C-alpha cells in the first residue's frame, strides 16, 4: 500500500505557544485515518496544516511524495469538510457542489452532471435548487461532503463533521461515511474528540494530546494495548492503579498489586520502579479468591451492564462492569469482594 500523506516532524508555533511538537505520521492510501484527542490537543491544527490554512513552522508534509507544506491551499489536491459546513449561502446546493469543479475549469455541462451524481450519492438530488439555509443540519452536512468529494481529491479532510448533528443522525452518518470512503477509495483523515466515532469508523487512529501523537494504531490496539496513562484514560473507561515493578526479565515484568498479590505482565518499554497499571473494568470477574480485594460502595444498574463502584484496600477507587444476566449475583454495598483479572487484562503503562 502506498503512502498518501507523510507528515515529518511538523512543528507549529503561534508566537511563544507551541501547538504541534514535531508530529510525524504516515497515512496510507485508501485509509480511514482518525486524529483523536481532547480539544486543544492540536488535531485540528494538524488538519489545517495539511489543508494549507496554517503554515507549518518546521517540518514537511508530503502528499504522494510531493512536499506540499509551502503550497497555498488552492494548489493542494485535498478537500475539506468543515465543522460548520461553510456552505456558500448565496449559491444553490448544486452550485455549491459544482464550485470546486468550476474552479478547476470543468465546463458547465460536465460539472453540472458530476455535481448531480454527487448529490445522488448523498441522496439529495431533490434539493439541488435549494439554498443551504433551506436545508436541515444533516442535509447541509451531506452537501458539504458532496462538495468536498466532487473534485475527486486525493485526500479528504474532515474536521469534526458530525459534531453539530444530533445523536441518531450522527450514528447513521458514521456508517454512511465509512461506506462512502470504501466506495470512493479516497483517503479520509477524520478529526474528532469522540472516541466512539473514532473506534467505529477508523482503520487506524492517532491519539493526540498536548501537541504530540501519543499512540497510533487500530481501534483494538489503542483500546487493548494503551501505551501510556493518557491513552488508557482517554479511550474508554479504565482503572489506573499505581504499582511497583519489581524486576523485568525477557520482556515480562513482575509487579506487586495493591494487597500484596504478585502478577507478571508484558513489559513493553518499561523500567523497574513506580508505574501505572491499566485495568479495563469489564476484564475481570468476581471470584472466591482473586488478585485484588475491594469493598463495594455502590451498584449502578445500567441495563445491559452492572457497574460496581468499589474501593481497593489501599483506598483507591476501582470500577467494575459485569454483564447483566440472570446468573449474576449482585453484591450488596459494604461487602468485600475478590476480583479475578482476565488473562491479559492488566496493561503496564510507560508512565
Amino acid at each position: 500500500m502506498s503512502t498518501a500523506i507523510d507528515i515529518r516532524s511538523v512543528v507549529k508555533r503561534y508566537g511563544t505557544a507551541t501547538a504541534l511538537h514535531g508530529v510525524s505520521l504516515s497515512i496510507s492510501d485508501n485509509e480511514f485515518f482518525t486524529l483523536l484527542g481532547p480539544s486543544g490537543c492540536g488535531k485540528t491544527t494538524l488538519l489545517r496544516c495539511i489543508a494549507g490554512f496554517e503554515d507549518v513552522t518546521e517540518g514537511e508534509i508530503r502528499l504522494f511524495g510531493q512536499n506540499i507544506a509551502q503550497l497555498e491551499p488552492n494548489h493542494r489536491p485535498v478537500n475539506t469538510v468543515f465543522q460548520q459546513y461553510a456552505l456558500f449561502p448565496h449559491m444553490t446546493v448544486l452550485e455549491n457542489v459544482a464550485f470546486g469543479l468550476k474552479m478547476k475549469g470543468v465546463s458547465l455541462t460536465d460539472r453540472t452532471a458530476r455535481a448531480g451524481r454527487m448529490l445522488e450519492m448523498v441522496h439529495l438530488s431533490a434539493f439541488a435548487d435549494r439554498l443551504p439555509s433551506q436545508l436541515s443540519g444533516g442535509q447541509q452536512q451531506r452537501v458539504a461532503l458532496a462538495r468536498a468529494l466532487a473534485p475527486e481529491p486525493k485526500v479528504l479532510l474532515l474536521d469534526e463533521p458530525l459534531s453539530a448533528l444530533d445523536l441518531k443522525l450522527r450514528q447513521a452518518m458514521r456508517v454512511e461515511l465509512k461506506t462512502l470512503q470504501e466506495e470512493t477509495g479516497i483517503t479520509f483523515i477524520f478529526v474528532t474528540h469522540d472516541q466512539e466515532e473514532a473506534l467505529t469508523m477508523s482503520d487506524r487512529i492517532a491519539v493526540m494530546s498536548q501537541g504530540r501523537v501519543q499512540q497510533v494504531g487500530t481501534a483494538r490496539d489503542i483500546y487493548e494495548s494503551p501505551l501510556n496513562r493518557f491513552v488508557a484514560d482517554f479511550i474508554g473507561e479504565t482503572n489506573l492503579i499505581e504499582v511497583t515493578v519489581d524486576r523485568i526479565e525477557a520482556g515480562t515484568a513482575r509487579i506487586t498489586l495493591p494487597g500484596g498479590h504478585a502478577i507478571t505482565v508484558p513489559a513493553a518499554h518499561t523500567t523497574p520502579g513506580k508505574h501505572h497499571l491499566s485495568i479495563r473494568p469489564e476484564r475481570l470477574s468476581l471470584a472466591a479468591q482473586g488478585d485484588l480485594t475491594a469493598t463495594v460502595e455502590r451498584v449502578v444498574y445500567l441495563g445491559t451492564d452492572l457497574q460496581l463502584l468499589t474501593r481497593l484496600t489501599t483506598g483507591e477507587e476501582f470500577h467494575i462492569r459485569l454483564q447483566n444476566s440472570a446468573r449474576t449475583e449482585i453484591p450488596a454495598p459494604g461487602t468485600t469482594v475478590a476480583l479475578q483479572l482476565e488473562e491479559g487484562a492488566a496493561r503496564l503503562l510507560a508512565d
Partner: protein
Amino acid sequence: MAGMTRPPQGNGTGYRGLIGPLLIPTWVMIGVFLVLPVLLMAVYSFLTKEFRGGVIWDFTLAAYDQFFLNRGLFGDEPPTIEWTYITIFWRSIWQAALATLICLIVGFPTAWFIATRPPKARAVWLFLVTIPYWVNLLIRTVSLKFLIRDNGPLNESLMSIGLITDPLPLVNTNLAVQLGLFYSYLPFMVLPIYAAVERYNFALSEAAADLYASRWTTLREIVLPVVKPGIVAGCILVFVPSLGAFLAPDLLGGAKTFMIGSLIDEQFRGSQGNWPFGAAAAMILMTLVLIVLMAYARAQTKGDAR
C-alpha cells in the same frame, strides 16, 4: 407588512389588543416627520409663487413647466426642452455616483481592515472613523476650503518644496466638490460594510480556497456576494445625500459645479426664492431616487426568487 412579527397565539392576556395603541408613537413619527413634509412639498409644488417668497394658493403646473420647458424670455414662444435644470440634475447624478464609487473603493478596504482587527482594536478604529462627526459639517467643509485654496497650507507647502511653481487651482473645481463629498460621506460607506464584513464567516473564504479558488476569485465569487447587502446600504447612504448635498458644492465648487442641492436651497432663500419651483425640483429629485431604489429592489427580489 413583512417586517412585523405576529404575536404569540392564544395566550389570552389581551396582549394582542395592545399592539394598536403601542404602535401609535411609530405612526405619529412617520406621519409628522415623513408623510406630512412630503405632502406639504407636493402641494406647494403645484401652487403659484409669491414674489417675496411664500406661495399663493392657486393651483398651477408652472413650477414643473419652468423646470422642463423653455417658452422664451416672455413666455410666449413655442415650448422647447429647457436644458438648464436637466443639466444640473445630470451633473448632480454623476457627481454623486462618482463620489459613491470613490467612497466604495476607499471604504471597502477600510471596513475590511477594521473588521479583521481584534475586537478591542475594532472599537478604537470605529471611534476614529466617527471622530470627524463631532465637528459640524459646515465647519469641516470650510476648513477643507482653507486647506486647498491658492494660498492654503497644501499649495504653500507644495510650492515651498518646489514641486509646483504656481498654486494648483483646486477650489471651485469638480475635484474639490468630490473631495468634499468624499470627506463628508465616507463613514456612511465604511460603517454598513463593516457591519456586513464583521458578520462574514471567514470559513467561507477557507472553503473557497480549499476548492481551488484564488484570492481574487474568492473575493469576487464569495466575499462580495455575501457582504453585498452592506455594500448596497453603504452606496445608498452615500449616493442619496450626495445627490442632494449643497454645502460641499456651494463652498468648494463654483458656477460650473452647481448641483441640485444648491438649486433647491436657493429657491427658499430670501426674496429671490421661488418656493413652488424649489418644491417641484425636490419632488423630481425624490421621484428620481425612488425610481432608482425601486428598480434595485425589484432586481433584488428577482435574483432571490431563482
